[in-house]
């Protein structure tokens, strides 16, 4: 316990460093910005800003990128409540009751509850990350190559189970991601694989290119082909930011449950903020004594998903920081950011770079505090940003992405490659393939190959090693069980229902 306090003290000393404080603020601001603006996702933004973090210290870079992720969870709710368009995929369900509350003249209360819920969830999950860091890192030391491989299989299966739409298509995206990650020189033998004689490909396909293409450019292309429906910002003045006593009392249990669900789904590989918010809303509706209130301005319908998405955004750092395995696409980008700075994510981060580990955790709490201030009193500024039309927004994003990608390696090939992935991403969306599992698998691919190789070498080519070592066998069993659950059509139908609601 005292050790935890010591560590947190170290963390706060790092986080309170003026430069890091500044990066935390920038991250929170940028996060709120992309959260508020519909049409720019978190993944694309983090990808866009990767090159910017080049010149920063590793701690500053990671603090800023983390701030973007959880900051977007705050900002997303503003647009959901006031415009009835989700600013962020994680705030889709917040529209349902949040916007109804706004129409009833209770926009202020909805925004305040969303911020309070997010802040509470942020505090709890920060503590959770701090508390779980040590034991999980200990667990990681028990892991051999076979266990790591099994864990990654489990993570990918989770991503399949939790993805929307068809299970088969999600599996296909995983396999495609793994296959694409094999392009380039083989790390062990140095032989070029699938490079088709292109020199630039022997370094592999850059992760930023893939992410920027399928998330950034493809999203813009998709948005442009939609008809431009006018965004109607609710013009009624946002007044009465303070929720009433009754509001607080009704939403308190929902915030608690949302935090719990979000924290759990954030830790699970393949989970993340989007799924957490859906799950929390569905759960709240199901246990409510009067479910018909939902969709008509029930305050729990704002409190639960907003606490869940923020909790999940933060707990998803746990598997990354302790096991070195990114549980979702944003964390996969964080791996990229860490690699740029020469940090190998995994259990050794905590022991070798305690200032980085604890500094990041402490900054999460500070960031949450900043976000409450950024979001509540300043909400008017963000609302006015919503009046910037998309026709001016998207060329700016494109320009920004181009410069960003180019600056990573000063390579025009990278820019061309991301354009190609943009077209590919558009094609994927037309055939209802989800890009998120692809990107996750793309990051995990080289790690999986390495661990599979080592496991097989140690076991002298005996595949049964994955089933005879207890931890590995357990992980594989869970993965197999989940897959069966997902494929059973009955359960799949129920799963689809969750997303329809």
């Amino acid at each position, binding site marked *: 316990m005292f050790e935890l306090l010591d560590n947190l003290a170290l963390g706060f000393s790092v986080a309170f460093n003026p430069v890091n404080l500044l990066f935390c603020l920038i991250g929170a601001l940028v996060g709120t910005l992309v959260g508020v603006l519909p049409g720019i996702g978190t993944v694309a933004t983090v990808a866009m800003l990767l090159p*910017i973090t*080049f*010149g920063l210290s590793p701690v500053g870079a990671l603090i800023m990128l983390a701030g973007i992720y959880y900051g977007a969870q705050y900002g997303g709710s503003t647009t959901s409540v006031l415009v009835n368009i989700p600013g962020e995929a994680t705030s889709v369900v917040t529209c349902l009751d949040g916007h109804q509350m706004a129409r009833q003249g209770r926009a202020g209360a909805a925004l305040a509850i969303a911020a309070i819920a997010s802040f509470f969830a942020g505090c709890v999950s920060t503590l959770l990350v701090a508390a779980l860091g040590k034991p999980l890192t200990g667990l990681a030391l028990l892991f051999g190559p076979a266990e790591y491989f099994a864990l990654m299989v489990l993570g990918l299966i989770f991503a399949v189970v939790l993805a929307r739409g*068809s299970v*088969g*298509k999600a*599996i*296909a995206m995983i*396999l*495609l991601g*793994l*296959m694409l990650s*094999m392009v380039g020189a*083989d790390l*062990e*033998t140095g*032989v070029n*694989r*699938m490079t088709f004689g292109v020199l630039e490909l022997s370094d592999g396909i850059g992760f930023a290119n893939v992410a920027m293409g399928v998330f950034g*450019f493809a999203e*813009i*292309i998709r948005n*442009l*082909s939609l008809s*431009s429906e006018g965004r109607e910002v609710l013009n009624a003045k946002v007044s009465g930011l303070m929720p009433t006593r009754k509001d607080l009392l009704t939403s308190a249990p929902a915030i608690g449950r949302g935090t719990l669900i979000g924290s759990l789904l954030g830790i699970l590989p393949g989970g993340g903020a989007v799924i957490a918010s859906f799950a929390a809303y569905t759960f709240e509706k199901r246990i409510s004594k009067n479910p018909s209130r939902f969709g008509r301005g029930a305050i729990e319908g704002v409190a639960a998903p907003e606490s869940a998405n923020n909790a999940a955004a933060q707990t998803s750092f746990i598997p990354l920081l302790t096991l070195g395995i990114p549980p979702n696409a944003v964390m996969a980008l964080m791996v990229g950011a860490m690699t740029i700075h020469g940090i190998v994510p995994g259990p050794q981060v905590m022991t070798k770079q305690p200032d980085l580990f604890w500094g990041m955790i402490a900054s999460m709490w500070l960031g949450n505090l900043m976000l409450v201030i950024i979001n509540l009193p300043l909400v008017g500024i963000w609302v006015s940003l919503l009046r910037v*039309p*998309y*026709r*001016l927004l*998207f*060329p*700016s994003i*494109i*320009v*920004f992405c*181009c*410069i960003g990608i*180019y600056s990573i390696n000063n390579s*025009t090939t990278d*820019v*061309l490659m*991301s*354009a190609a992935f*943009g*077209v590919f991403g*558009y*094609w994927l969306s*037309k*055939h*209802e*393939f989800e890009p998120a599992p692809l990107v996750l698998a793309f990051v995990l691919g080289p790690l999986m*190959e390495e661990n*599979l*190789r080592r496991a*097989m*070498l140690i*076991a*002298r*080519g*005996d595949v049964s090693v994955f089933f005879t070592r207890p931890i590995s066998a357990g992980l594989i069993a869970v993965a197999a069980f989940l897959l069966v659950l997902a494929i059973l059509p009955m359960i799949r139908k129920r799963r689809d229902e969750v997303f329809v609601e």
Partner: protein
Amino acid sequence: MAGWGRLAVRVRNPQNFYGGLALVGLAAIALIATAELAGIEDARFGAGTAPRIFAGLLALVGAGIALAGLLIDGPRIERFAFRGPAFVIAAILAFAMLVRPLGLLIATYVTFMVAIMGSNEMRWIESLIAAAAMTAFCIGLFVYLLKLPFQLFPAF
């Protein structure tokens, strides 16, 4: 489908059928490209082992999806838009081609202008001003604030 008439086979879910087929195609390309690479030897993975495993599985799953597309009804493929994507891609290509020879300033301005033509609500004066503002912002951020090594102006 007219061409398939006699076989009485109909593509019931074009999204899955063509999507699955394309994945099989990609997997086939990968399998051909890795055919020459070393395989397993004494329990030691060769360079080609893992790619071939993944590509092989992808071919199987892709074929499964395509088959399901023949048997189970599903939505049509939405029409691909042309104007928006074309200008977005043209803008990115313009950036890639211009940034080396003409420098960041011109490349950024041109990229913005090409991209904005993809919108059917484009207005000239507003766009020209916005492009200038964005160019100034990017140069300020990347060149002066972050000090990334960009060439600003054309090299003569």
